[in-house]
């Protein structure tokens, strides 16, 4: 079956002329039509665009201008503006928004020749860890339809797990690539902040947001990251320095690798079955020549409150542009200006988005700025420094992505803070802008579990090397839910 091939195999067959991109793309479109109604992983499917791009890819494959990823279909998270395609951020606010431009990432992946299958479901405005806050309803976890796929890039993780796309884009502000990758048993990497342009990505929290690839294997993610990370002067925080070849180190040996294992990542609240999976995975890495060293991240617990002050503060301002004037939802018959604003926003935003906007506005308001916002920024530095100190003793840090495997749909929707605390291992990484990766490492209670690998700034090639070497001796990343294999 085409969809069970690796991207490498697909690419070989495309280049050898054994299959065409149109066939491959049509195959995925057929699967989407068949399976997406139950999974709800796509907000929008774009068959015409996909096939048009596939035909163009086939021309390139014939005339010798095709690259590694030319002809491989892709699904974009609905946070990436896509010219001429609805880009909703899974919000009623943008339900009618047809983006008039492409995000830089979309431009680059179009240039690479990757046909766009559609836009994937997510937590509204990327605020959430379960994809349940989508205006279009929750996405289901292909491994267990009662479980959430994680979030906010839950749709992206689900389409990879269910073979409804071979590759997908995601964004990660507090764990939104890694946690759904863990919950759905796929590979996902959040690069160093500033590696991928944020231009055209609908902002949640600007100093944390970073886009990255989601796929089955680390090797595939490396290829995709190479294609999507070109410097872009339109994002003032996009780093100008030359990008490494993220696939260059894939085949390096892990001999001599020093793995930091923070005690704080194995404490109270960690599901024992998850803990076992992680410890087994680290043991597997040791077999490949790595050694472990205990490291300490003493301020880990401060990361969650710090993040939940800073990210909503930025969000409260970033989302002020949704005012019903130039785009997006506008209430009926506003009686005056304030009514236009208040009702358009109350109707257009869902409960969690409204909560974060209000919390963020409060944290910045007169009298609370020092106690909340500035305090949180100081804690951010302390958390960041914990990591840089740890990286003096080790090359990378390993631990769980999340304390539990995927939880059930509806399990945490009533208590926002319990949902927030589920991000306790991923958030610290965003505070420091470090790269972090989740790779499939086993199952707990029948649901997938990812190994979290975090490195210093600009260590993506090393992380992907570790992922690839691990995937040479394990097959967790090749496992698929039976009904979607």
């Amino acid at each position: 079956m085409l969809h069970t091939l690796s991207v490498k195999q697909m690419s070989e067959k495309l280049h050898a002329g054994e299959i065409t991109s149109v066939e491959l793309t049509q195959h995925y479109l057929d699967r989407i039509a068949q399976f997406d109604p139950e999974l709800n992983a796509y907000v929008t499917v774009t068959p015409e665009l996909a096939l048009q791009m596939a035909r163009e890819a086939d021309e390139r494959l014939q005339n010798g201008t095709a690259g590694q990823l030319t002809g491989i279909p892709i699904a974009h998270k609905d946070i990436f503006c896509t010219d001429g395609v609805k880009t909703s951020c899974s919000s009623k606010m943008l339900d009618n928004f047809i983006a008039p431009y492409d995000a830089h990432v979309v431009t680059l992946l179009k240039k690479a020749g990757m046909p766009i299958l559609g836009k994937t479901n997510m937590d509204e405005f990327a605020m959430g860890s379960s994809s349940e806050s989508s205006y279009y309803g929750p996405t289901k976890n292909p491994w267990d339809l009662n479980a959430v796929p994680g979030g906010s890039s839950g749709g992206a993780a689900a389409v990879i797990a269910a073979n409804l796309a071979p590759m997908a884009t995601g964004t990660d502000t507090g764990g939104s690539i890694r946690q759904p990758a863990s919950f759905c048993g796929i590979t996902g990497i959040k690069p160093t902040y500033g590696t991928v342009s944020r231009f055209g990505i609908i902002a949640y929290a600007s100093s944390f947001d970073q886009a990255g690839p989601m796929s089955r294997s680390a090797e595939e993610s490396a290829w995709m990251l190479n294609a999507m990370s070109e410097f872009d002067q339109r994002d003032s925080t996009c780093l100008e320095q030359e990008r490494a070849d993220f696939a260059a180190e894939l085949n390096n040996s892990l001999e001599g690798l020093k793995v930091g294992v923070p005690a704080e990542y194995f404490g109270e609240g960690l599901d024992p079955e998850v803990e076992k999976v992680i410890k087994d995975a680290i043991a597997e890495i040791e077999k490949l020549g790595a050694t472990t060293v205990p490291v300490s991240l003493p301020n880990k617990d401060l990361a969650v409150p710090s993040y939940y002050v800073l990210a909503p503060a930025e969000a409260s301002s970033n989302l002020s542009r949704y005012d019903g004037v130039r785009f997006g939802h506008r209430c009926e018959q506003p009686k005056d200006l304030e009514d236009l604003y208040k009702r358009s926003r109350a109707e257009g935003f869902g409960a969690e988005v409204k909560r974060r906007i209000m919390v963020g506005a409060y944290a910045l308001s007169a009298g609370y700025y020092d106690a909340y916002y500035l305090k949180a920024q100081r804690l951010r530095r302390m958390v960041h420094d914990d990591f840089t100190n740890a990286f003096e003793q080790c090359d990378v840090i390993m631990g769980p992505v999340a304390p539990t495997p995927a939880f059930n749909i509806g399990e945490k929707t009533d208590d926002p803070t319990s949902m927030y605390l589920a991000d306790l291992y991923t958030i610290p990484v965003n505070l420091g802008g470090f790269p972090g990766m989740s790779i499939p490492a086993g199952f707990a209670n029948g649901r997938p579990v990812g190994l979290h690998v975090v490195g210093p700034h600009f260590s993506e090639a090393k992380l992907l090397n570790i992922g690839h070497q691990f995937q040479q001796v394990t097959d967790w990343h090749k496992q698929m839910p039976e009904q979607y294999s």
Partner: protein
Amino acid sequence: MSWEVVIGLEIHAQLTTKSKIFSGASIAYGAEPNSQACAVDLGMPGMLPVVNHAVIGKGIALGIALNAELGKKQVFDRKNYFYPDLPKGYQTTQMDYPIVGKGYLDIDVDGETKRIGVTRAHLEEDAGKSNHGIVPGMTGIDLNRAGTPLLEIVSEPDLSSAQEAVAYARKMHELVTFLGICDGNMQEGSFRVDSNVSVRRPGEPLGTRAELKNINSFRFIEKAIEFEIERQIELIENGGQVVQETRLYDSETNTTRSMRTKEEANDYRYFPCPDLLPIHVSDEDIAAVRATMPELPGAKRARYVSELGLSEYDAGVLTSSRAMAEYFEALFEHTGSKDAKVCANWITSDLAGALNKAGLDISESPISEQMLAGMISRILDDTISGKIAKQVFEAMWKGEGSADEIIEAKGLKQITDSGAIEALVDEVLANNPSQVEAYKGGQEKMMGYFVGQIMKASGGQANPGQVNKILKEKLS
């Protein structure tokens, strides 16, 4: 009992860039609605700001001119509030780390120099414009102006009269236009002055201030402040209280009126813009700006007096705008840098008069520096007299050609042949025997009469110096 007036000004100077502060859209004035509002200016989803390099150099130039502390580290903050002309729901501005820190500007009022403190100047983006009456009951929003770079220059409350306030505003206007960082066009809103006015009894704490906004001429600013001072004093003396509010000036009635009945305390929730990193300005950057800065008007004025020997008055007129000073300096150079006074006189009297009559700015003068220099050179080399030059000037103004062409065509060349002049002198003396008698009898003022007669006989073309010399010889 007497009253003390306390005034502080906030001046918004639009910077003379090509593109906006955070986007590549044009800032040209008067375009069709929203034709210069790009996706970044509109705050469309996913759009991000990128700082225009030019605004930094222009801000630093003002800082140098104000002898101010320069912001070597600058941070753009977001000022959050909702308004239809503010597309993103926040204005990007500099709160804690502005480009210009404490500085000062010296002003002259009634012959006295007073130093006015400048608190700060910061970079920020302008908002769009609201238009009424497009559709009944609705306001139309044009966002062309949104994102236009502004420098907000905040003074200390050091101004103690309307006269001082206007002197300061004029001086700042002169400075920013001289630096070329702002075109100074008040009608188009390129230079906007907001005045904070309060009154108090001497020795008492500051009174409550009212803000006068968007007055587009210096004359009206002065009148508005004067009215406002009167209003506040009268109000307090009648037992009332000044309310902190924004007031609009009505030039028709020469009064101010309250702009909003309900002034809400705003909670702007400033915080550093997470889409932008801090800007660092190095000593080299500052040196580079300094190297390209024009000589400032004050320094120019002093130099014109001390080095070129011009009067204070002439020096003042010639430095009243950058274009004027540039015209003068080019003229002086083209005439071989010989006689600054002649150059100054021609600009301040004849040229300024003609321009004023035609309603033209010096930059639009039909007589270029080169043309005027051509004429002055002919005065200096005695080809024509100053009097004949006025004829040449008029002809040049009408576009009849260069000075040389006009002198040639009209035969205005000065008579410098001493034989010809001698003949004229002889003729006049012969025709006026009684006057010659009178002169010899001690009436020396007759000299002027003879010169006049000789010049008249020569059609104004005889060289006056030679006429005098030969006349004296003949009469002695």
